[in-house]
């Protein structure tokens, strides 16, 4: 008989079932067996989760694992370790590796590395176009067969509207979504931060919100022509949120994600020219942040995704405009999301939805809930535990975070994938 693990007496929050109650989760083998009001007497392993939050394992739609090609920043194993330490049991790996994941061979390599790491589920995203160049379509069908779950040119927009149209149409035939980085390059060219008050004060060339807005509006218009599924990555502006909300009202299949750094920070954070605040899209104005919080509350946003983008000092210890874009996020995302709950910006159930059933819904995954019969992926969090963000303690190989030194509340205590504990917080030195 399969091994039986009982996670007893935790506060089980499972948005897919609308559940927020003290329950004991029974895992049998790789699946959830039951959610009981009282712990059963028999268990091979008993975990006392009294006072803890027990949720479906978190799902991150947007992670850069840097393997193959840039293993000095991260590799599949180190990224997966950072993921489980952050409570993530499924991560979607972006294709801007070297070589680009535009061929099944690269997809297979990533999946092989993930199997060997035996930590979280790694779902590769395939490129939309060959070499992320925005010209010829990648072999999307073969990529899908190899295990890709979504297509994206990742940090690059598909600037040609006709290529984007064909990509949406073709992906529709495969039943998969196209994830888009929305940036009109003619508007953002040379920009290092959001264009507005602070770019003026700091003398850095700005990227206007319109660089994102016009592309979101364009792609929604294309989606009306093609059908299919458009997923907007790291949405950051008020205008883009408004466009997605309106498209959803018209029943178009548009989904979107927002990152913890965009809902936690504004362009004011660039003040010291600290390159860990440099990212694409850039940190936006305070009105944008407010609009993102509203969109997180009202259902416009489907998922919180980290856009975990590890970089070494070689790419970051540079002049602000020359520094690479991106921040690491896997190990701070949950606590930054819970910060919104503690500040009254987001109900707990909704916050957990954005980390679990929300992203699962974008990809049509069967995880993201603790319904009996589903994969036993779960995360245990101590909501009361406060901790200081110390990048030196990250499992990620990179330390590029603007949250260093922040005191956050809510600590991931253990992470379970397919019924197996893959991470245990040891307190103190993580």
């Amino acid at each position, binding site marked *: 008989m399969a091994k039986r693990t009982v996670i007893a007496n935790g506060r089980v929050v499972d948005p897919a079932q609308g559940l927020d109650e003290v329950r004991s989760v029974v895992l049998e083998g790789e699946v959830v067996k039951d959610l009981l009001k009282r712990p059963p007497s028999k268990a091979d392993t008993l975990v006392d989760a009294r006072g803890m939050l027990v949720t479906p394992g978190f799902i991150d739609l947007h992670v850069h694992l840097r393997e193959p090609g840039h293993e000095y920043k991260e590799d599949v194993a180190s990224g997966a370790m950072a993921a489980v330490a952050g409570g993530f049991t499924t991560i979607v790996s972006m294709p801007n590796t070297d070589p680009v994941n535009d061929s099944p061979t690269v997809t297979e390599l990533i999946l092989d590395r993930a199997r060997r790491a035996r930590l979280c589920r790694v779902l590769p995203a395939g490129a939309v176009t060959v070499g992320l160049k925005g010209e010829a379509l990648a072999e999307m069908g073969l990529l899908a067969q190899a295990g890709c779950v979504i297509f994206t040119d990742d940090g690059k927009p598909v600037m040609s509207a006709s290529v984007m149209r064909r990509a949406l149409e073709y992906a529709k035939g495969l039943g998969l979504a196209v994830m888009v980085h929305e940036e009109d390059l003619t508007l953002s060219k040379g920009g*290092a931060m959001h*264009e*507005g008050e602070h770019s003026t*004060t*700091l*003398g850095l060339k700005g990227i206007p919100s319109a660089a994102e807005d016009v592309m979101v509006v364009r792609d929604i218009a294309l989606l009306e022509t093609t059908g299919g599924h458009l997923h907007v990555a790291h949405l950051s502006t008020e205008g883009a949120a408004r466009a997605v909300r309106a498209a959803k009202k018209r029943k178009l299949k548009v989904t979107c994600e927002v990152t913890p750094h965009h809902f936690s920070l504004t362009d004011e954070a660039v003040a010291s020219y600290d390159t860990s605040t440099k990212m694409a899209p850039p940190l936006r104005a305070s009105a944008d942040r407010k609009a993102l919080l509203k969109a997180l509350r009202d259902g416009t946003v489907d998922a919180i995704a980290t856009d975990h983008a590890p970089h070494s000092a070689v790419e970051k210890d*540079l002049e*602000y405009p*020359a520094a690479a874009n991106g921040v690491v996020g896997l190990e701070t995302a949950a606590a930054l999301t819970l910060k919104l709950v503690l500040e009254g910006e987001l109900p707990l159930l909704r916050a957990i939805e954005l980390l679990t059933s929300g992203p699962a819904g974008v990809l049509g995954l069967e995880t993201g809930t603790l319904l009996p019969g589903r994969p036993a992926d779960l995360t245990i969090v101590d909501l009361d535990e406060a901790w200081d963000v110390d990048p030196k303690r990250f499992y990620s190989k990179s330390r590029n975070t603007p949250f260093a030194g922040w005191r956050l509340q809510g600590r991931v205590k253990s992470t379970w994938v397919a019924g197996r504990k893959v991470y245990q917080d040891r307190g103190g030195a993580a």
Partner: protein
Amino acid sequence: MGTRNALIRHVLGIGELNLSQVETILKTARVFKEILSRPVKKVPTLRGRLAVNLFFEPSTRTRTSFEVAGKMLSADVINFSGSSSSLTKGETLMDTAKNLEAMHPDVVVVRSHAAGVPWMLARNLGCAVVNAGDGLHEHPSQALLDALTLQDAFGSAGEPGSLRGKRIVIVGDITHSRVAGSNLRLLPMLGAKVRVVGPPTMIPLGMRQAFPGIEVSHQLDGAFEDADAVMMLRIQKERIAEPLFPTDREYSRLFGLGLARAERLKKDAVVLHPGPINRGVELDPRVADGPASVILDQVENGVAVRMALLYLTAGHDNDPERLGAES
């Protein structure tokens, strides 16, 4: 003089200086200006000190001005030109900084295409850092020399006048001008009323929030006639990648200071330009060389201001109060 709160470690931007520090700099510059007018200009003040001009971006005027300033003070001055982007050599800015550090300079004067570089160096170097222009951000020594020039223009019989209540109009590409960036901070600090004029393509989106006290106009006519000083900015064609205006002809008709417009200036109004001038575009040569022009005073004051900056940062154990006696 409030010497205590006027201590100056670095000169990174006008935004980092308080009024007392600005007054100290301008007052010190006046002393040096007097020295420059003597037959023997060189003073031993910074003998044995090393000043490094670290220029990541080509600049003859500013570099020469800092070089002359250092030499007048008897400092050893070396010029170190980085490539326009340190990345191209595979060397990071921090590598360059560490290499400089090993030479034990007393002050590094830095010019960079990237905003913020002086701040990054100040965090990583043990010596003083003076900003000689960073990206689109600040050019503090230029604004200080402009202020010195305006004090001269507004004064009488060799006495410096005040900028308080004076109307100063800055014309041109405000967005891409670090000269404007520093002047928009300094001139209001000294009590001047500042108006910027340019097409909307040359006024930053965040202007009103970033500089709430500054008036904005998109037409030169009706916006310069009440000025006590008009500061014409250089059209930086080499840095403009997008179309900010249709043609030089249109720009000079709409935003240039030609003879006819110059005649409508107030009687004692002065005209400034940070140079080099695109003659005939932003400024008619006859105005640039005419009676209202103080452009060459700006150049002369530039040396005096930079001497003051080097003296106050690299010679920080010197007492500014004793400067006159020492020379």
